[in-house]
């Protein structure tokens, strides 16, 4: 989230699309309700009329997988009718920059495409610079090669009639959505976009989010209280676990994992490659070196490149993401697997196939509170023959969050502490202790080894107190960082250095523990410090800022766009940015100073990216899902041309002839993710006890299905049983003149626990987004019949 939950109360209009907070983030609705009481509006855009829709002022359905068409049409309408926030667009976005004339676009394909590798030469999409290395601008926004004009041209194809033919949205509802949300483009108004996995889990997921970004920049909604782009996180610490580098391509704080390209053979070469020439990321060497110091302590010195060579290097262009893990496993390349509270046999795409891959492992370690479908994949109940499965499986019982202590970061980046209320149940242990025990044993085993595999293990700095129970306070100090000589805590990331004199496990968290005895994640002062930002409650990364990009909450000359919604403002007398939030800006850089308008200073241009380089192009373009009942109306390119394919056995694709119905998955309020944390609890299991599929009255009639009938849902990947729930919440879509049905089902179920049922992910495809490779769970094809 650029903003945070409490800030939702300040919005004039919340566009909720690809998410259903009333059911999946229920308490967020307290703040939306407050916004409504103050006259704010809620718009819900969803294939299904959800509980969020029922609370909205306006509801518009769209077919799963047509989001770019929907938002692209909004962008076009706003540009055509000049509903954008002109001053904001001119000053804070890259609208005026001139794009090199190597940029082109024709029939769904941008210039520089290589069909063989399904990738683009992205260097063709750069900005023009003058002889002094300055970006060339046209402040009138008239140059045909400026971002504004190229964007206008690109989205001109997204006219309302074409859009509604593709999305299936009733035209009048669509126009109302645009007009209602475009109201927030007026100076002084603020609109927020709230989304979740309904947006991201598509082959075009990242560009769906980019389209939101363009819309919000055009309307001047980023950086404002009550504005922003707000991704609603589904797990208590999926924010933190991403911040801390638990994805293959990032180390902590969103920095690059090294690869084995020749430039990256040395630390110096690596830093040159990953450090941009302008923007705040020019400080990256300080953050990276401080991280290496936290990792390798005294074994990281200037003479050994701060231990850089101990770090594993990825093979360039090799994808190590979730689906590729299972591809490799299936091919027998992976011997061992750790699963920390995760259950891919229920939660993974094409889950039946992913389960099959698990049996190729030599060993597996499951760390969990519950026996899950994944840790028990070898059992008869799972449809396996145990005698044929040679995997050694270890189950280590973890304790729950209140049987240990530590912090979690919510969607709003608030790092809140959880204290220990009771000892771990039975012989279970906290994950911190389990990880610590593993580390100590590896260190012991490699102590006297001269095997190359021993080097990094021996160099790893691992000093968290005596015995098997680590001292969490020492871990916290290291995450924040300290002076490596004096051991005094570092006050904030601006003080980190690249000479090895500071360490910091995660630069974006640097400042949460700025001095002895002050772990700010433990702060509980709940007095509102202004605009609901509660600056003394917990800690928000970075630097306790509650609203990202808040320089843009003020006009170019530093005054708030609206008196009712003050983020920060320029105080000329004090020569400082002051206000209700920690400035997300150099605190004494005046509006008139060089860079005084660079609200988006993380980027080299300092400007919000209307034009932004992604794997499939600098502007979002509509492509159909991997499985779709229609052909692409916008170009002759059916599927995202940069989406990659994996191992063939996983890639089964159904056609509309065999599977004419669109399917999507979602969650219910009473269950959580792959279910282990709720289907093992009596109350929640009683509340939603059975797997079901939601079917429209029209489709039910066509198929002769009655409410509560047992039905079979089939896709190219497999079939599952569920109870039919016939509802008015789904309505057939009219797409390009033909009637298309859509069904939806929860993905929480499996055969373990108290509440059991078919796993929806046995139906979902093994293909993902071109940038993140998040699977396309939200739009695929199926058929439904009575069991």
């Amino acid at each position: 989230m650029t903003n945070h939950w409490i800030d939702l109360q300040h919005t004039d209009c919340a566009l909720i699309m690809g998410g259903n907070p009333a059911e999946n983030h229920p308490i967020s609705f307290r703040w939306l309700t407050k916004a409504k009481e103050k006259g704010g509006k809620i718009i819900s855009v969803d294939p299904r009329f959800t509980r969020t829709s029922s609370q909205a002022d306006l509801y518009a359905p769209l077919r799963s997988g047509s989001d770019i068409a929907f938002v692209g049409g909004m962008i076009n309408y706003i540009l055509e009718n000049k509903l954008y926030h002109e001053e904001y667009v001119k000053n804070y976005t890259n609208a005026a920059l001139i794009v090199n004339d190597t940029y082109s676009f024709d029939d769904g394909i941008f210039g520089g495409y290589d069909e063989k590798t399904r990738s683009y030469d992205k260097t063709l999409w750069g900005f023009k610079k003058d002889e002094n290395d300055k970006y060339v601008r046209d402040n009138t926004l008239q140059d045909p090669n400026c971002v504004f004009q190229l964007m206008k041209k690109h989205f001109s194809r997204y006219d309302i009639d074409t859009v509604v033919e593709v999305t299936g949205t009733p035209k009048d509802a669509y126009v109302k959505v645009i007009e209602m949300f475009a109201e927030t483009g007026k100076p002084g108004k603020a609109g927020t976009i709230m989304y979740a996995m309904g947006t991201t889990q598509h082959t075009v997921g990242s560009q769906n989010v980019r389209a939101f970004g363009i819309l919000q920049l055009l309307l001047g909604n980023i950086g404002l209280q009550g504005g922003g782009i707000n991704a609603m996180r589904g797990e208590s610490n999926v924010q933190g676990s991403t911040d801390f580098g638990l994805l293959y391509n990032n180390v902590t704080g969103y920095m690059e994992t090294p690869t084995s390209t020749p430039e990256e053979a040395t630390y110096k070469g690596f830093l040159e490659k990953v450090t941009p020439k302008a923007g705040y990321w020019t400080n990256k060497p300080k953050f990276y070196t401080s991280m290496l110091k936290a990792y390798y302590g005294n074994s990281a010195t200037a003479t050994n490149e701060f231990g850089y060579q101990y770090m594993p290097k990825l093979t360039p262009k090799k994808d190590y993401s979730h689906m590729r893990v299972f591809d490799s496993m299936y091919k027998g390349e992976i011997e061992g697997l750790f699963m920390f509270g995760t259950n891919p046999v229920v939660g993974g795409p094409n889950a039946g196939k992913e389960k099959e891959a698990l049996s190729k492992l030599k060993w597996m370690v499951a760390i969990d509170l519950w026996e899950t479908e994944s840790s028990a994949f070898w059992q008869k109940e799972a449809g396996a023959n145990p005698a044929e499965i040679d995997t050694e499986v270890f189950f280590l019982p973890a304790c729950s969050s209140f049987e240990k202590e530590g912090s979690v970061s919510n969607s709003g980046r608030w790092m809140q502490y959880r204290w220990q209320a009771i000892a771990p149940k039975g012989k279970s242990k906290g994950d911190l202790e389990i990880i610590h025990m593993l580390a100590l044993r590896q260190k012991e085993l490699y102590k006297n080894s001269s095997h190359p595999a021993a080097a990094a293990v021996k160099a790893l700095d691992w000093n968290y107190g005596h015995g098997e129970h680590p001292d969490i306070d020492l871990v916290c100090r290291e995450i924040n960082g300290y002076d490596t000589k004096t051991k005094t805590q570092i006050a904030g990331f601006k003080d980190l250095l690249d000479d090895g004199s500071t360490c910091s496990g995660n630069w974006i968290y640097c400042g949460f523990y700025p001095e002895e005895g002050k772990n700010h994640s433990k702060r509980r002062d709940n007095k509102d410090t202004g605009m609901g930002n509660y600056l003394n409650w917990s800690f928000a990364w970075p630097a306790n800022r509650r609203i990202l990009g808040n320089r843009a909450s003020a006009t170019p000359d530093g005054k708030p766009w609206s008196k009712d919604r003050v983020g920060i403002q320029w105080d000329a007398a004090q020569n400082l940015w002051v206000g209700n939030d920690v400035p997300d800006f150099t605190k004494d850089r005046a509006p008139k100073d060089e860079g005084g308008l660079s609200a988006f200073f993380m980027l080299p241009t300092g400007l919000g990216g209307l034009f932004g380089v992604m794997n499939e192009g600098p502007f979002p373009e509509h492509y159909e899902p991997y499985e779709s009942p229609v052909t692409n109306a916008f170009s002759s390119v059916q599927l995202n041309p940069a989406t990659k394919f994996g191992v063939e056995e996983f890639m089964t694709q159904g056609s509309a002839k065999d599977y004419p119905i669109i399917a999507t998955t979602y969650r219910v309020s009473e269950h959580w993710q792959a279910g282990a944390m709720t289907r093992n609890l009596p109350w929640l299991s009683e509340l939603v006890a059975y797997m079901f599929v939601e079917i429209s009255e029209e489709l039910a009639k066509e198929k002769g299905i009655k409410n509560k009938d047992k039905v079979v849902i089939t896709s190219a990947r497999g079939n599952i049983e569920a109870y039919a729930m016939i509802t008015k919440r789904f309505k057939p879509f009219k797409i390009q003149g033909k009637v298309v049905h859509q069904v939806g089902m929860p993905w929480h179920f499996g055969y373990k626990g108290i509440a059991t049922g078919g796993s929806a992910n046995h139906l979902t495809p093994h293909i993902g987004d071109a940038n993140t490779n998040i699977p396309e769970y939200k739009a695929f094809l199926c058929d439904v019949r009575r069991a």
Partner: protein
Amino acid sequence: MDFTRRQFLKLSGATAATLAVIELGFDDKKAKASAKDFKISQLKPTPTICPYCGVGCGILVYSDGKDVVYTEGDPDNPINEGTLCSKGTTVRQVYTSDKRVETPLYRAPGSAKWEVVDWDWAMNRISEKMKDTRDRTFIQKENGITVNKVESIACMGGAALDNEEVYLLSKLMRAGLGLTYIEHQARI
């Protein structure tokens, strides 16, 4: 309404779904109040954050050291100000559920069952497996460049772990053991 909180929960476990629904919303202000008097008046609440979604609601946990007696929304947390949804409300059962696995378990190759093992045995054996796999499959160089990596072990999950835990996990798995397949729920 003079039954205790504990009886209340037992009842819910034993009866039909509809009853549980009524109970959740049941107004039990009176019952709750009396249960509170009996059960938690002497106990100090411990603040925690809900382990479910990313809203981050505050919860107070009342424990007598042997059991979790009662949980409720934390009125001081500015995000939820004491309110909770169905999941947060049920958090006590994360402790009390009889489905919790309480000891390390081991499944031998080809076996159809789990065996109870002790921590030391499990940890030592896992550590030996890790070392054996690493030593056999360690990649020191790739195209002449030092890569120091292990592509035969994967580490998945972690979205429900604490920050301090995920920090140590990525530090150990990547910087110590050289894993490249490090993934978690944010991807899926």
